[in-house]
């Protein structure tokens, strides 16, 4: 009897396999009046704070951080806001959605058919506007990714200025790639390779946990490596910060040029005075400037060409392109066997030609995007070179407008600032 049933089942099963689709093969039996059918489990959606609350908290945190950094000039205050943001935006909310990732949503939503939520728009826009007003106080104490690196920084090592400058191109490249991949639908690489999100959730793939821990280990000695050498949102904030209305100053009083602040800054964001250095000979400086100006378009074209060469490889990030290439190889017999994706595609019964056509559209879009991205990174590199040959006179130690993260560490190291505090504490006139 059992064999017979088995035989019937296997035949039925094979029939099912041939069709390759789900069927209603065995009607549910009548089980009598006493039978109580269990309920299918559909757990309720996790409760979260409403979107408005998150936006309000973001604004509050930025305003508080700005108040502590610019008005009260208190490193402790900035640190406390940072710790609170780390707890809420990091560990409670699980680090998602963050302004860094929102770049991709906003870039993708340039296409009016793509949906976007209000929180994401707000998370993209608010820190940019805030930075135009107060400088990078968002970086100092609101961004959970910045905060987690900041709280573990115990023994900062100075990164040479030339290296910081060169590595400064990485975030620009990352930003351009992320935008290209988001716009073409290839994926959100900023989210995929976010090193800290797995730490915020205390869960994740082994690779991501190792990546996150490595970043934290480096952060013990190198101030905020992600912020300075990778963060794509930091690129935008750096530009905004250069134009900011108000900003953190080391001390509002006259600099005594002791240089202590420069050592205190773990991010290499304090520039030395250069008024007493002799400027280079006028002719030599002008020659450098002219050469870099001539070099700029060459660099941009070369960058575009490189981006174009990288395009086909970049296109493989897109699932459709990847699948089409795989199917093509399988059909040609260049590879043996199938993948889950190629099996799934064949089950849908779609024509391979339609898939190839889709893939070629995506591929050409990504190659075009890669060309633009390459040219853009080269343009920024060229602008950096040009900026090197333009001299700006500084008479005092100053925080760099673009790279100062407004953390406030330098306040406590400035002797003028300490004297100012002391006199204010005694109720004396504020010098």
């Amino acid at each position, binding site marked *: 009897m059992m064999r017979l049933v*088995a035989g019937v089942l296997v035949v039925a099963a094979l029939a*099912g396999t041939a069709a390759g689709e789900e069927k209603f093969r*065995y009607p549910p039996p009548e089980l009598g009046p006493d039978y109580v059918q269990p309920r299918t489990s559909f757990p309720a959606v996790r409760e979260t704070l409403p979107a408005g609350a998150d936006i309000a908290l973001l604004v509050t945190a930025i305003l508080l951080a700005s108040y502590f950094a610019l008005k009260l000039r208190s490193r402790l205050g900035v640190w406390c806001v940072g710790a609170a943001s780390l707890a809420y935006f990091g560990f409670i909310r699980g680090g998602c959605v963050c302004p860094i990732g929102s770049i991709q949503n906003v870039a993708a939503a340039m296409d009016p058919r793509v949906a976007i*939520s209000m929180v994401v728009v707000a998370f993209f826009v608010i820190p940019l*506007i805030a930075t135009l007003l107060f400088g990078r106080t968002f970086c100092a104490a609101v961004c959970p990714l910045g905060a987690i690196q900041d709280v573990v920084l115990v023994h900062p090592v100075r990164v040479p200025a030339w290296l910081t400058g060169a590595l400064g191109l990485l975030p620009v490249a990352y930003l351009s790639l992320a935008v290209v991949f988001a716009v073409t639908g290839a994926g959100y690489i900023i989210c995929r390779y976010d090193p800290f999100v797995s730490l915020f*959730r205390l869960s994740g*793939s082994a690779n991501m946990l190792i990546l996150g821990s490595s970043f934290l280990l480096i952060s013990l000695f190198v101030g905020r490596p992600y912020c300075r050498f990778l963060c794509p949102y930091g690129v935008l904030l750096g530009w905004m910060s250069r134009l900011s209305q108000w900003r953190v100053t080391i001390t509002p009083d006259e600099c005594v040029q002791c240089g202590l602040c420069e050592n205190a800054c773990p991010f290499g964001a304090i520039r030395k005075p250069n008024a007493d250095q002799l400027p280079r000979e006028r002719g030599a400086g002008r020659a450098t400037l002219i050469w870099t100006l001539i070099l700029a378009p060459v660099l941009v074209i070369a960058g575009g060409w490189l981006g174009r060469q990288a395009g086909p490889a970049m296109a493989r990030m897109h699932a459709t392109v990847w699948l089409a290439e795989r199917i093509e190889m399988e059909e040609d017999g260049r590879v043996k066997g199938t993948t889950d994706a190629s099996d*799934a595609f064949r089950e849908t019964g779609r024509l391979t030609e339609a898939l190839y056509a889709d893939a070629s559209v995506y591929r050409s879009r990504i190659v075009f995007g890669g060309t633009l991205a390459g040219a853009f990174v080269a343009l920024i590199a060229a602008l950096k070179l040009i900026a090197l040959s333009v001299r700006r006179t500084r008479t005092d130690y100053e925080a760099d407008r673009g790279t100062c993260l407004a953390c406030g560490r330098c306040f406590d190291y400035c002797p003028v600032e300490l004297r100012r505090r002391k006199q204010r504490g005694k109720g004396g006139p504020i010098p």
Partner: protein
Amino acid sequence: MDEKEDKLTRRDFVRAGARGACILGVGAVGASMAPRALKSPERMLWQIDPAKCIACGNCATHCVLKPSAVKCVHDFDRCGRCKFCFGYYETSPDAVAHAGVEYQQCPTDAIVREYLGDPYYEYTIDEDKCIACGLCVKGCKRFGNGSLYLQVNHDRCLNCNECAIAAACPSEAFVRIPADAPYPLKDKEHGK
């Protein structure tokens, strides 16, 4: 000295102009997306379309949560209460012939089999044990009624901006759906 002051004001003037332009630009980006954002549902959730799901097993391994936010659910309206459930047993002839403990598919013993009266059995899922490997789903879909299928459990899902499983899904089965109907896809298929 006068010259220097002039220079500073000029620089400040350019900076103020650029700042204004940036505020307008960023504001314009926000404003252009705000109407769409206000119209769209406040929350979108990730969910699996069971019609597209091929139960490849990526849900068990790619989710940022361990164990995965995806679980197998059982649609009792569809279940045929089979004696030889290919969600429960391996799909080998030996399994059918012997139907012993050694032929059970579920690696975590998350499917509970209860006798209902010959020849019917009830299969329920112990969600705490389920790791969303999809072995039972595959068996039930190919050889049974497709009453076992994978769904994102919204009490666990963190609703990542980019779902790691969606990025790894070979059959484009991951979709974003409005939060007010979090488990709609199988029901819709059967007109409920």
